[in-house]
């Protein structure tokens, strides 16, 4: 009887061990510097693309050649920084 219990306890210990290990490494947390930089740069570039796109459309529509582009480029850049801020906050929260 005691022999059996001991075996079971050992098994439980083993299972706990495996479970805790698999929980630790479940999410791919290890990310190189390149991947991180990539994430940040896409956020800025995406916002800039949208800003410049809107600026060009506005210029085309209202015939205000450089002004719309300038204004929305700045808005796009600021939106890019906002995106980066949000991504960083999410990463910080995960830690």
């Amino acid at each position, binding site marked *: 009887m005691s022999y059996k219990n001991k075996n079971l306890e050992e098994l439980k210990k083993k299972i706990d061990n495996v479970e805790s290990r698999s929980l630790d490494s479940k999410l*791919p947390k290890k990310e190189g510097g390149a*991947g991180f930089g*990539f994430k940040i740069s*896409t956020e800025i570039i*995406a*916002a800039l*693309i949208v800003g410049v796109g809107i600026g060009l459309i506005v210029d085309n529509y209202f015939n205000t050649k450089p002004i719309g582009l300038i204004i929305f480029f700045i*808005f796009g850049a600021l*939106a890019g920084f*906002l995106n980066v801020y949000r991504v960083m906050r999410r990463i910080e929260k995960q830690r």
Partner: protein
Amino acid sequence: MAAKGEKHSPLEQFEIVPISNIEIGSYNISFTNSSFAMLITVLLITMFLTLTVNTRSIIPSRLQLISELMYNFIAQLLTDTVGDNGKKYFPFVFTLFMFVLIGNMVGMIPYQFTFTSHIIVTFALASIVFIGVTILGFINHGIKFFTFFYIPGVPFYMHPLLIPIEVISYLSRPISLSVRLFANMLAGHTLLKVFAGFVVSMPFFTGVLPLTFIVALTGLEILIAFLQAYVFAILTCLYINDAYHLH
């Protein structure tokens, strides 16, 4: 191919080659190597998931375990990020995840086309997510969804500046989502081909060096393939969450 000569560009692998030409009206809807890769991907997913779960054994076989692991992975992701509301969107997120994951993996097979390395494919996927999430936001909140762009607790004179920024930030979502997946796959596969070129062109036995590097790089590339599918899925979950909880 041999007649074309010795020019082998690292970007040649991304060329779209029609397998059978189909044209309806002025639209070219040819069945290309990209469509072929997608077809293989869908068939692989369907066959794998149906065949492995088919037995429904309580003590799962190894393959069944893989299927259940994938299921649990996405189910856990949804409950963690969206909460109880997320259960409804499991089929959608799971389909997206599997399509991107297996698509990336199919692309890792030599001579196989990687359809996720084309911006139009990833952008279409991201647009589906973006449009769907926007509609979802309007269904849940009606016209109040626009308060998503309104940040409370900011001086009133800042709003003319902040609201356009918020709108642009919102509109940039599908672009950042698609560009991330596309650029990762494009860069990885190009890098592999560039180093493969070094193997042939380097003198004597020094070609072994880039060859070993390719082996390591292939492993990294498989990790990236999984990571990008995961990122795509988790961002979809976060966007669905945003459609439920403004701010």
